[in-house]
């Protein structure tokens, strides 16, 4: 399987997971509504009975926005406070949900029960992984932008034009983006590893995922890149469609709202799609490659797990192998299972 197969297969798998998709969308929607409500109360109070608000129906009006914000400058404090609460909360929920997403995808069982079972089972280990990678991202950000900060003044004094400065600064952002994507890739595969192996050994999982990502660098990195870039053309199309919509009438407003929510739903879809593609890629590579460097003690568990997958379709246990012969037998069994699974998907 290459990245394109994983990408397309992930898309299809996500489409089957409608209940989870709607649940995630609903959580996003409700949380945003809860956060926006007090803000809207402030805005409504700020505008009072003014007709100025109707000017905004026809599009951006700088004078009105400026005067409104000047008179209601506490709004920024309020928005900041809301974001400070809602972002960590939503992040925690997303960590919780990621376990459920991977679990449903792995089991091809798209029920909310499976989803919540997976979410609960994986929450703590996924939380540990997520925190670890946030810390890593922050450390790398400090390192990359620290170097940028330390060198930019010197670069400024020698650069012949703003073009070279642009590319210099851009190269740092690009470097950080690449590092960030790389770390996110490792994070994704670490989650897959932990879930598939029901393991709590975070460090080992990170190490194995790091090795995995490096070993399959082109596929893992570009799969992540492809998944990260996919929303851009969609956003462009969405922007083009909605750009000239004033929403000045009720019907226009409803259409605009629906289009907005479709785009948010797509963002949620992307989130699940990302996990699905990664899992698709990992489960195949994992099965085919893992045996070559496997912890030989746990083949028995593997074997048991292999029996399980006749019901579960996919593997979810750590391998133990005692002899090369046993391994070969198992591999053969696994390949049959994988082929079976692929046929059933087709």
């Amino acid at each position: 399987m290459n990245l394109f197969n994983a990408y397309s297969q992930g898309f299809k798998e996500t489409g089957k997971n409608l209940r989870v998709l709607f649940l995630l969308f609903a959580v996003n929607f409700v949380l945003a509504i809860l956060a926006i409500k007090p803000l809207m109360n402030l805005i409504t109070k700020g505008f009072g009975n003014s007709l100025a608000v109707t000017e905004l129906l026809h599009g951006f009006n700088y004078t009105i926005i400026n005067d409104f914000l000047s008179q209601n400058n506490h709004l920024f404090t309020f928005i900041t406070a809301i974001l400070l609460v809602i972002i960590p909360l939503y992040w925690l929920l997303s960590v919780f949900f990621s376990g459920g997403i991977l679990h449903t995808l792995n089991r091809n069982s798209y029920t909310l029960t499976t989803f919540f079972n997976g979410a609960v089972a994986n929450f703590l280990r996924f939380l540990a992984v997520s925190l670890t990678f946030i810390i890593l991202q922050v450390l790398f950000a400090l390192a990359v932008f620290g170097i940028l900060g330390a060198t930019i003044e010197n670069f400024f004094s020698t650069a012949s034009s703003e073009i070279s400065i642009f590319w210099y600064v851009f190269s740092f952002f690009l470097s950080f983006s690449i590092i960030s994507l790389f770390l996110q890739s490792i994070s994704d595969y670490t989650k897959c590893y932990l879930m598939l192996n029901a393991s709590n050994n975070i460090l080992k999982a990170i190490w194995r995922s790091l090795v995995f990502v490096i070993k399959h660098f082109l596929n893992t990195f570009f799969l992540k890149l492809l998944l990260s870039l996919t929303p851009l053309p969609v956003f462009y199309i969405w922007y083009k469609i909605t750009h000239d919509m004033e929403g000045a009438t009720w019907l226009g407003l409803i259409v605009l709202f629906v289009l907005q929510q479709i785009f948010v739903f797509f963002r949620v879809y992307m989130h699940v799609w990302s996990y699905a593609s990664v899992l698709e890629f990992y489960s195949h590579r994992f099965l085919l490659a893992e045996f070559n460097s496997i912890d030989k003690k746990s083949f028995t568990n593997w074997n048991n797990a292999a029996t399980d997958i006749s019901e579960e379709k996919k593997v979810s246990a750590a391998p133990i192998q005692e002899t090369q012969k046993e391994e070969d037998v198992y591999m053969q069994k696994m390949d049959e299972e994988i082929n079976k699974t692929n046929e059933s998907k087709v």
Partner: protein
Amino acid sequence: MKPPAIKFFLSIFFAFFAINFQAQYIFNLPLSNRQANYIIRVNLNTENKMLTAVQKLTYINQSADTLTELQFHAYMNAFMNNQSTFMKESNRPGSSGNPEWDFGFLKINKLSLADSANLLPSLTYFSPDDNNPDDRTVFKIKLPGKLMPKDSVILNFEFEVKLPKIIARTGYVRDYFFIAQWFPKIGVYEPAGMRYAKRGAWNCHQFHANSEFYSNFGTYDVYITLPQEYVVGSGGKLMDKKEDAKGLTTWYFRAEDIVDFAWTASKRFKVAEKQWNHVKIQLLYQPEHKDLVQRHFDATIAALEYFEETLETFPYPHLTIVDPPFYGMGSSGMEYTTLFTAGSFWNEPEGLRFTEMVTVHEFGHAYFMGMLASNEFEEAWLDEGFNSYFETKILDHYYGKNTGLIDIAGIQIGDFEFSRSGYASLKNKGMAEIYRNAWDYPYGGYGVYSYQKPAVVLQTLEGIVGEKVMYQILKTYFKRWKFKHPSTRNFIEIAAEVIEANSNGNPKFDINQYFSQTVYGSGHMDYAVTDISNQLKPGAQGWFETTGNLAVKNEKSTDQYESYVQIERFGEVILPVEVLVKFSSGREVLETFDSDQKRFRLKYSGPDRVVSATIDPNFKIPLDTNVINNSYSITVKQAAKRKIFATFLFWLQNFIQFFI
């Protein structure tokens, strides 16, 4: 009379003769009084960043007073050390660790009359504004004799300038040089009756952090010698260019009827030229800004057209635009009558019109400061404010009323809107008046009170008197004061005169009161509609006397409404404002509310209810700092709030999704 004095007067005679019979190179007749005329030969040493120059100044005493001393600006000394008034006021850290190269100075080595009488011993630095003993930006010299009315004096200077690293629009960075405020420049002598002078005196201020300049009109013949590989541009017309065997080139520029002379040199400059009517526009641009060349020309031509139509033809046949490199941005956005620096960035999107904004603004100074040579030290609004008003008019006219400055990705901001927001969003709008010495504005106030608020004040005046009358005022002001030194009072007098002439003897409002509130006063303006009430007129109830007897009545309400619209004034500024009142029947009434009361009720009676009221419905009074409370409706359109809600919701949903 002592021999030196005789020589002195002989020199005056010959100088006067020379001035009056010299060839006219650019204009057939002088446009100005040409009070201070300079011939300067300057060498630029690009290695040690030094200028060495000789300067011959011919100064004509245009006043009826007899002068015994002359006062000069030595602006470059503002950057001499961190103790100058400029440096202290601007709170600059000073040097970045290399004071020898960061700071600069102007040093006069010789100063003599045409007859060689040495005046250097009489040269005294002094600080008329703050008595700062370390400031050397103003000096005076004692003349050995008297400079009689209408006579002239020739002074020969030998001076050197160590250029600072670019600061306050002058200096060098690498091989880019922007040479401004660089020569000893005579101050303006104001005789009694000129501007606010009650008796004749020099008006020669120190260089302050927040101030520009005040200068005489004159001619400039400037010979600039520097290495051949440098491209040079100036505010003068290139008359000649000669290369010598040492690898040096001498550029000879002449400028007439301007107030200052600046020039620039760089190896990286590319040159683009465009002829527009009689004006040859030269753009010195950076190679990486090639795509922006046309935008500079378009903006300049837009400004030329607009000024020609509204004020008068741009008289000069040459105009130089300088596009500084990114490392020389400290020199961007600076104006001299026939030269200005713009400022642009590689790949600047067309929807961001910062290049156009700076270009139009700096060009506009050719009129406000260049030809109307107001005192920028004492009345900064007369150049920056008027010019900002024109800048916003031009940008919003050519690039769209609400898109004059920004039109990108659904964000649209007009240049006037942006300018107004600088003032309207001030927390303390009354921290200063517009009319104030530039260096006396409170911290952060210079930009708002000399640029933004004046633009709003003039736009509001236009809203009140109408565009036609406004342009008549401006045209009259320009025609009457071009190539002179107008004051705020002069402008107000003309405004009053034109408004009166257009009012058939019944002026709508008091222009003097307007300016006393908005220019001389610091109050802000904020009118609001704070309530609307509709009540059915009650029927007769109670005891009523009819035919001598008291009888009780208990009638039901009538079908007539008694309505009122409550208007309140939260600011200090009182102006007549229009109020548009709409009724449930669709009827509309446009009233003019002209009262100094803080709370006032407009009352209506009839079969229909008042549904909304809007102060200044056509946004003629942008001076009102809060447009939100300018209207009130008893039935607020929910759709608008829902749209805001949906938009906020959408972006919040996306935002939080971003973090997972």
